[in-house]
Each structure stands twice: as C-alpha cells, then as structure tokens.
C-alpha cells in the first residue's frame, strides 16, 4: 500500500488534524505533549517489532507461578465464555530470574535481554478476549478486533505529523504481503489516506545475507522511479507545467490549494532521487551489517533504524507469511499436531514441549544485534490460540 510520501508538503491541506492535536508542524511534539504527563515525553519515534508467532509471555517475560501450582489441572472456574473448550493448564518449562535494579523477571531464554532489564519497559497488562490470531493482531494494531479502524501508526502520524517531508511518516517493513491479516493492520481507515502505513518489502535476496548484490533500493520505493523517462525529461515537463499554471493564474491572487499542488510537484521530483537513499543499507559499514546478521528481519531492523534516524515517526517490522508461525521448535512438531486428523492435541492447553534444547535458533531470522531477543517463532499454539509478543528492543 504505497503512499504517504512527502507528508509536510501538504500539511496545509490537513492542517486541521495537526492543529487538533495541539501541535504545530515542526515544533517538537514532546514540548507540547509534556504537559499533563508525570514525566516529560522524550520519545519521538517508534520502532515496533511485530513478532507474530513469537513465544508465549509465560515463557518469556511474564512468569505465572500459579501455573506451576495448577499444572495439569483444568482451568478453575471452567472455560471462559469466549474461549473454545480447553483441557489442562501447563506450566512454563523455563525458569525465570530477576535482573537489574528493577528486578524484572526474565526467562532463562534471554540472559542478554536480562542484562538490559533496567532499560526496558515491560507491559504485562495487555490482553484480548479473542482466542484467535487475526483478531488479536487487529486488536494490537488498531485497538479493535474488526477491520476498519486506523492503526496505531496512522494515529501517531495523524496526531504528530512527520519530521521529514520527503519520507512517509509511517513505514511498514515486511518481507512479503500478505502477511497474516495483511493491509488492514496498517490501514488509515477513516483518517486521511496519507496516514496509512507505507508498505516496503524487506525480503532478502538470499536468506544467508542481509543484502545481496541484486539489491536495488529504487525498486523498493513506490512511485519513485520512472522506467520511461529520464530525470532531465521530467524536469522539462515540470518546467512547462509550472509556466502554464502560472499563465493560467495570471494576476489573480495566490490560491493556497493551487500553490500546494505546484509545490508538491517539486517535492515529488526531489523524492525520486532522495527517498531511495534511506533504504540503501549498502551504505552501512560492514561491521554494522555483521552486527545485524543475515535475513529479512535483520534487514527490516536495520532499515527501521535508518528510517527513524531521518525522522520517520513510526516503523513496524513484521514477520511474513511463511515465516515460522505459531510454532515452538522444532516447528514441525506443531505443524504435525495441527495436521493430526483427530486434533487430539488441542485438548491440552499446551502440548508437551520437546526436550530438545536447540530451540530458538534459526539462521534466517535471529539478528545477533538483538541477542536472542527476537525469537523467530516458538509458540505453543493450540488450546490458546494467540501468542503475539513484541519484546521491546533498544537498538544500537
């Protein structure tokens, strides 16, 4: 869903939304927002790693001692009305340890994340009532389980505008579309279309690389590269158009709408050369590339950093369809269980974990820069049908 480039040029057109948020374009958002908060807001950009299919919170960052107590027993109080029938509860097979001054409890799976405990804000209160992936993903992104509400990134750019007029305010990096659910996750719904997330494919050419020799940032960006015309030809077309528009206006006073159309034309022309640069991760040092490791998620993360460095308000990095989904490693076992005709395994809350300890390492999607923080997928499915975690990461 490519659009959204060049936010500022039309700020005058959508000025209302920005004014409504009490913000002037270009004025630091934090200064205005700080009033009324108990601490000054410093965040200007968001990188949102949406790890659909990640492992359960009870195995990662949210220990539940009561599960130990009730291991193997049915859910006290019976099945929740909106749930399908479930069998017994199952405790986490992993142990937890407190880290840092805050004493944040982190699973044994993430010792390195534990080392950053005091830099992490953990939210443990989020939940949905729906035992299903798609509605839950919609809930996470749009606040509602049904399609048709603006996504969080759309609201952010609607409220705060953008800091770079040559780039979209809200970028979605995903190896392929459709991912699970797909475009409705970054939809602007009833907000002006410009607030919609701009989808950029982040799929690597080869899974063992972060950037291959066939990589061409111009191919990533919508509307950026014309196959038929050279820039010089376009320049002359635009010059003629500008002079004809001026002749037509004659001596009439300036109309901001018409002026806006003309100036956005200039922005568009510039974007053709400037915008692809931000996605050109070849401009990163070899050391940085190695730090991120290979794979589409690594590429997405690195692009996300380059985008926020240039003032993009919100970047989401997704896994795609075909990436490990809802699986605990060895993922095939869970696939096997899904495929099992009798669905017998559905009747345990979580199927027994395999004893293997080679869990959570897949070369295609575990950028070393995130330590093991990004779990490719490892989710006990079945029974409880959604585990979406997006462990917060501080990058670089």
């Amino acid at each position, binding site marked *: 869903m490519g659009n959204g480039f*060049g936010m500022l040029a039309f700020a005058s057109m959508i000025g209302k939304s920005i004014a409504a948020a009490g913000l002037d374009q270009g004025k630091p958002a934090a200064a205005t927002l700080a009033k009324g908060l108990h601490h000054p807001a410093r965040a200007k950009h968001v990188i949102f790693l949406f790890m659909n299919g990640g492992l359960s919170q009870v195995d990662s960052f949210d220990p539940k001692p009561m599960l130990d107590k009730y291991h193997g027993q049915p859910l006290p109080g019976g099945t929740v009305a909106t749930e*399908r029938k479930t069998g017994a509860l199952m405790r986490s097979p992993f142990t937890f340890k407190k880290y840092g001054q805050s004493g944040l409890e982190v699973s044994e799976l993430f010792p390195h994340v534990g080392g950053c405990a005091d830099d992490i804000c953990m939210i443990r209160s989020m939940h949905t009532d729906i035992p299903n992936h798609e509605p839950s993903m919609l809930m996470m992104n749009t606040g509602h389980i049904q399609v048709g509400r603006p996504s969080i990134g759309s609201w952010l750019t609607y409220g705060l505008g953008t800091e770079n007029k040559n780039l979209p305010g809200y970028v979605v990096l995903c190896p392929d579309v459709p991912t699970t659910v797909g475009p409705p996750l970054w939809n602007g719904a009833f907000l002006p279309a410009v607030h919609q997330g701009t989808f950029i494919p982040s799929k690597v050419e080869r899974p063992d690389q972060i950037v291959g020799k066939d990589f061409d940032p111009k191919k990533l960006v919508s509307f950026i590269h014309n196959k038929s015309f050279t820039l010089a030809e376009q320049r002359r077309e635009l010059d003629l158009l500008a002079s004809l528009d001026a002749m037509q206006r004659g001596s009439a006073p300036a109309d901001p709408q018409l002026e806006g159309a003309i100036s956005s034309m200039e922005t568009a022309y510039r974007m053709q050369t400037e915008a692809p640069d931000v996605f050109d991760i070849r401009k990163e040092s070899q050391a940085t590339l190695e730090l991120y490791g290979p794979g589409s998620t690594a590429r997405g993360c690195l692009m996300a950093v380059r985008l926020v460095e240039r003032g993009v308000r919100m970047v989401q990095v997704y896994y795609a369809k*075909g990436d490990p989904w809802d699986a605990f490693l060895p993922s095939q076992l869970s696939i096997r269980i899904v495929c099992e005709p009798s669905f017998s395994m559905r009747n345990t809350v979580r199927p027994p974990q395999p004893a293997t300890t080679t869990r959570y390492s897949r070369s295609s999607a575990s950028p070393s820069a995130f330590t093991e923080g990004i779990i490719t997928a490892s989710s006990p499915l079945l029974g409880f049908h959604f585990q979406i975690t997006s462990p917060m990461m501080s990058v670089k």
Partner: protein
Amino acid sequence: MPLYQSESGRFTAVMVGAAVMLVGAFVAGQTPAPATPAAAAAQTTDLFETRIRPLLAANCFACHSESAMAGLRVDSRAALLRGGETGPAMVPGDPDKSALLKVVQHADGFPRMPRGRAKLPAADIDAIAEWIRAGAVWPAADEAPAPVASHERPITAEHRGFWAFQPIKKAAAPAVQNAAWPRNDIDRFILARLERDGLAPVAPADKLTLLRRATLDLTGLPPTAEEVDAFLADTSADAFDKVVDRLLASPRYGEQWGRMWLDVARYGEDDYRSLDPMGRGFNPYPNAHLYRDWVIRAFNEDLPYDQFVTAQLAADLLDGPDRVRHLPALGFLGLGPWYYDNGAVEITRADERHDRVDAVSRGFLGFTVGCARCHDHKYDPIPTKDYYGLAGVFLNTEYTEYPLAPKAIVDEYKAKEKALKLKREMLNEYTAAEARQLAETLAFQSATYMKAAWQVIGEPKKDKLSIVEKEKLDYELFDRWLAFLQKKPVFYPFLKDWQAMVAKGGTAKEAATLADAFQDLLIGVVLEQREVKKENDIIKARALPTAKPKEPANLPNEFITNDDFCPGCGLELRSMTVDRTTLWGDVFYSNLDPDDAPGKPSRPGLLQFRGWGLEQRLGGDRRALIEGLRKDVEAMEKALPEKFAYVHGVKDVEKPVDLKVHLRGSPTRLGDTVPRGFLSVMSPERITFSKGSGRLELARAITQQPMALRVMVNRVWKEHFGTGLVNTPSNFGLNGEKPTHPELLDYLAQYFVDHGMSTKALHKEIMRSAVYQLGAGTQAAAFAKDSGNRLYWRANRHRMSAEQIRDAILFVSGALDLRVGGPSVTLTPLADRRTVYGKVSRYKLDEFLQLFDFPSPSQTAEHRFSTSVPLQRLFFMNSDFMQQHAERLAEQVADEADDTARIQKVYRKLFGRAPTADETKAGRDFLQAEALKQYEERRAKAKMPPDKDAEAKDDKGATADADKPPADGPPADGMMAGAKPGATAPADEKKKMLPVSTFGRYVKILMSSNEFLFVS
C-alpha cells in the same frame, strides 16, 4: 548511535486470566461465618445516621450514586440489595456474604474500595459489618427508588429542545438590502447573513466556469467542446436552467450522485475473512454491484427519499412490485461488513449489530447512536437502552441471498450443485479409503523393506536396483524407506536402535531382528490408531446435537455458535502418546522433517500414496472405478450452468426476540431486556417495534424525522458547495456543528418535502441560485472576516475527486465506456468503465482510489478529505494511465495541419477554450525543442557503461512477482503501472499500449495542470 524509543506490547494469553480467576474461585469457596444475634442498639437508626451514612457519603457516593459505576448505587437500601453488575452488594444480617463489606475489607477476589484511596480505618469497617449484621436499617423516608443496573440518564425538556429535534420551521425569506442580487429564496437567506456581517458576495462565475462546474457537479465529467459552444451561444434567460435539466436527465447523473451515497453506505464488495476457505484472507460478494446499480438507478429515477431509505432498510418487507424492484437495496445491510468468523460469535455478532446501528443512525439521522453502546451518550440524549432497542432490530435480521432468477432455474442449479458435491465427496472418500488400505497393507511388508534396506546401506552394500529386482520391491517405496530410516530421531526414539546398529555395522541377523520388531511396532500403532478413532467417533457422535453432520459454515448467517468456528474442536478426544502419534503421522499421514523450511508443502507419509501414485498401485478394476468417478465429476462440473445472480440481502429471523443491554458494551454481561424500538428523544412516547425485526417500522420512524430530512438536504448542499450548512454531515448532535444558516436548512428541508422528496428538484433549486453561480474570486474584506467561506461569499475551488480525475481523463481521451451498471472491473491503465464501476475492496482498497482520498469502505463516511500529496504528482508524471490516455488524445488531433492547430484543438477538448498566444508559444517551443533534446540525451546515455543500461532495463517489472496478487485477489495495482515499481498493466493491455510521443507528453502536462484538475 542514539537510543531509540521502541514499542512494547504483548498479549496476555488466557492463562493469565486463569491465574486471576483462581483467586476468585478460592474466595467463593469460603463458608460465611454464622450471623451473630443482632445488637439491639444497632437496630436504631443511630448507627446509620452517625456512622454509616457519613461514611458512605464521604467514600462511596462520588462513584456510586448518580453515576452508578459498575451499575451500582449505594445511596439507598434497595439499591444495595439490588446491587450492580456483579450481583447484590449486601445481604442484610449476613456481613460475610455482603460484597459491600468484602470490598472495604480488601478481601481477595473483590475490588479494593474505596478505589484509589487508603483502606478505611478498622473501626469504620467494623461499623459497616455491625450495621449489616443488624439488618442494615435505612430510614424509610430516604428510600430512593431502586435504579436499574443499566443506569439511565433521563431525557429532559432541555434535551428535547435541541435545535436538530425541532419540527421544520417555515420561515419567510428575510429582506435584503441588495434586492437585485438574489435569484431565489436561497439567495435571500445567504445574502441576509452576509449583510449582517457587512459582507457582499463576489462577482458571478463566467459562463464557461459555470458550465464546467455544473457539469462536473452533476455528472462527474467535464463538458464537451460542443456543449460549451451551445451554452455560450444561448443568450436566453433560462439557458442555465436548460443545462441543469439536461444534466439531470443524463444517466451520468446517477453515477456521480449514487457514489456520494455509496460513501455513506460504506459500500464494499468483499469482507476481510480470517477463515476464508480459499486462503485469500477475504471473501468477495460476487453480486455486490446489484446494490450499487440500484443506488445509481434510484438517483437517476429520482426515487423519493423516503422510499430510498425504506428500500435500503426493509425492501424485503414491502409489497408486490416494490419488493421486487427494490430488493437489491438490501445490500445496504446485506453487504456487511460481516464479522462472524473473526472472533467469538457473541462478540462478532455484537460488532455487526454495532455497524448497522452506526451506519443507520449516522447515515440516515446524522446522530451518533453508536456512542451509546457502552454507556449513555456523553453529549446527546441517547440512553444505552436506546442503542440496544435499535441493535435489537438487527439482532433479528440475518443474512440471506435472494436469487434473481426463476425458481426452476435456481432449483436446477442447486440440484446440480448438490449432486456434484456428493460425487466429489464420493471420489475423495473412495480414494482416501483405498490409500489407507494400501498403506496399512504395506505396513505388513515393513520388515521386508527394512531387511532389503540393510542390504543396501549395511555391510553387503549392494546395488539398489539389483535389490529391488531381487526382492521384487516397489522402487519408489524402497526409496522412501531408505530416506525414512535415516531420519533424525528427534520426535520419537523408535529408529534409534536401527540407526545405532547401522552405525556400528551390525549383522544381517541383527538387522532382521530389528526389522521384525519395527514392523510389529508399526502394526501395533495402526491397530491402536484404529481403536482411538473408533472411540473418538463415538465421542463425536455423542456430542453432536443432531444426527446430521455439520456442513462447513461459510455464509454470514451460518455462524451461530462458537462451535461453527471449528465443529467438534472443543471435544476432548483420545489420542495415542505423542511419540506414537508422531510415528503414525510420519508413516501414514505426512512425513515431516525437522530441517524442512516452514511453509514447504508436505510430503506424503512413508506408506501413503496419492493421485497417480495410488492408482497405479491399485488393481485395474479399482483404478477404473476411480477414473470413472473422476470423469463423472469433470462432466458434472462442465454441465453446471453459470450461477444465477442473487442479491446479498437480509431477512427477518423466524422468532424475533429482544436484546438485553450489554453492560459496558460486553456481550457476556447482560442487563435488562430492551424492547426493539426507536430513539426516545425523537418520539415523545418511545416507539416500540413489533412486526418481525422491526426494520420496516424503523424505516417509517426515520423518514418521519425532521432530522433525517435536514441531514439529506445538507448532504446535497455540501456536495454542491464543498461545505455543509452543518459541516459535520453525519453528526447533527451536540458535538457536531451548529448550522451556519439554520433557517436556510429548514427552508431546504421544507422545499424537499413540498417537492415529493425529489433530490432532482432540490438540485434545480440550489443550482438556480446566485450563490451557486458565484465566481471563485476573492475579496479582501470578506476573506479577512471569513477566510473559510462558511458564509458563501464566493465559490469554493476544489480538486476533482478520484473518480472525476480518472473519468475526466478517459472522457477527453475518447476511451470512456458510457454503459451503465454491471459487474465491477479491476481498474487498470486501459480499463474504460467509469470509476464507480471499479472494484471496491474492504480488504485492500485500490491504490489509485486511496491515493486520491477515496474513503474507507469499512465505515460510513460523511465526507472526503482532499489532500494534495507528492505521490499524486508522481502519478500524473509517471503512470502509464496518464501517458496512455494522453497518447490517445494526441492521436485524435494528429491529423491537424500543424502543432498550432493541434494545440488549439487539445485546449478546446480539455478546457473548452482556445489557448492564449503565450500558451500556444509555450507548447510549440516544448514540442520543437523536446524531440531534439531527447535524441541527444538518449545518444549520450547509450555511450555510458553497459551495466547502467542493464539496470534501466531490469527495472521493468522488477518486483512483479513479489507483488503478484493471489488469483481472484483484490484489485491489482494496475492504475499505478508506470508510477510504481511492480505495479504493471495486465499483459493483454500492454500489447494495446501506444508508444510514448512528444505530443503525448505535452498532452499529459496539460492534463496534469491545475486548470484541468481543479473545479472552480
């Protein structure tokens, strides 16, 4: 590098909820202490007056009196007895059973009260306990009536006095100073208001501007050069009236104005589906266009507005010919959005009802009833009860399909479809049974194959082929065994011994022993699996409510319970141990490998054969049987006629019921039952509905509302002027705008009623006015006072809409197909239908439409934004659509004598006027210079290193594969071809594309000019 803020958010799975629930379960299990004998002193009112009342007032009343948080009031004894959402707050005489005491004690499982404050002193808690134990005496004089759990704010006279609810006032047009300006009463209202502020309107528009404005306003297309000539030549007084009549009579009128309504009606042709059986993620409504065409026809035929409303809500409940004629109107409700499979049924159905309440109340009434789903409306007098009274109408309205074909054809189709389905099932079942039998038979040869395998991989290391021949093995099966025996023992230990034996170089005897043991194991697993299956079949059969197995549900009306989501999934079935189940799966179902990439298509199980692999292993007669079945299926598929058209509509359920209030909007926490009915504030005695769902009664109630009429005339006004008299067209409530010209609004509403609710009559009256015919010029004094032009002192200039841009370009290029109606088309560079006939996807909206501010089809839209973004300019600069249609126009003028003549002709076609001398010169200069420059540049580029060239070539369709939509998918990005990498025109269109020419580039520039794209 700086540290970046990132986002964290996680779902807490239900297990968390479970942990919380444990606490509640525990406490509930405690037994209360027996009540002690009442203390005489406490029975007096003293304790209450001196301790309890002050205590309640100081700590509880803030939330639990008037505002009744959680449905609870504590300001009367009756209220405490009645309690709130979680039940009674008090059991007189039994403090331990009284939630009131538990909450102040901060007992486990109870909310801790008073919320956000320190726990009450022990003495106060004891006092409360004592008071309850003594019978909770509350002086009778103070007894307030017990409020209902679903607390309702009363509607006051002040509420009813709000302007929007008032009857339409017939006000005489006011006197004005400049009596020469007004052409009709509309102008008098406008001018009087301007004069009050000391303002005056600007000069009228010139004739060309006016004609272009009127033509685009009414038809969405620019006028032709001939139409311009005719109008300029017509100097009669009623020249413009004749133009308006001509435009209103054009079928193009309905296409332009129907689309206005389709925005309100959130018209979409598919819904997002999490359980789409075809795996596309959405489900199309193949006959959605019938509703769209009905709307267009309704405007063209000038269907009176009350009938327009009634048809969309209740066409199925009308009589005779009206029912047949208006049935497609039910698409307003029948096309959803339907959410049924996207979550728990209780919730999704409530969300569907919410959509209907929202679309109906905002769309027809300009009233935001949807806000009252969880609580009384915060601004408008809409109690939650009213919401559920309306939602109840839609509780009893379900999806249905109305065939638009004679019964005989429908029956024939259905019979053939059913027969085909049965035949397919037969084929599948027979094949599956054969496959299973074959696999189980082959299990008995396991030892043979393993022993043979040992001869190849073990010490003898014999040639594979020779063993196959010698042992008379199935080559493919033997291959599978060889691979299988090397499988990593990740999931089960059963192959470990064998592999250890091979690794250490065992003997033939050892191999034979292990092979026999494995065969025994496999047969054991087969037998156990059969046992398990038999038992599970019984469990399933017992659990089924009817003897008939459930058909897979896929229509909006077929999801009744959560079980339809996944029939039988909630059953507790038996299974073998994990390792045996896994072995069974590998051998008989699907052979998985830990190293397989996710998403890779599964391999058949070791002994499982499918398709031809199966058939060739069967005897000739059984093979013939399968073949025969398959041929039958193919023949029946061919013989199945094209499915008849049908309306996606709704009907009433058989036994209508009323809805209970959903406390705080939650469908699992129910309050009082509310009879189906209309909004209290709009009817002195709340109108209740009793006929079926009540849709017809609802439609009648709506069309009698002055508010409904004001809303419609305001929509028409806003389309003509850019701003509404109320510029929040779907919100006439307290939080919406007040009308800038209330008397004019009422005048228009009355005019509408007086003229049989004819929209066309309204257009005529509006367009006849001087205010409609104003120029877009400016005036310093007026601009200083009213820069937003809310008082209509000039015309508002605006960019054409997405549809107008595309249609206008197709129109001037001569490509536009002017047929009315029909199935929707994908918008591609050369697609020639009007944009209103393009596909409208809720799942993935066409990118072109979106780029030019088409509203989201998931919710009713009251207006369109008008953004001006660089991406739009890139579309004008780079898209195949622009270039191709410019080339087509260029072709039309190619025969002219010279560039000057061509330029003149193009100007007339595009702008309805001749070019000025400067404009002609600019055009000629460009055309002459460009050809030469282009030639030189291309030659220079050809001399550059070859890899650059390769890159340029490579760009064509570079990411085409990645962007390829699934078959029958949402609209491709065709309109974006050329402007966006990966978005390509369909192959058959590419062949028809004209080569790029310099004159074509010139025309493209003209078509991107402000003069063409803006309506003044």
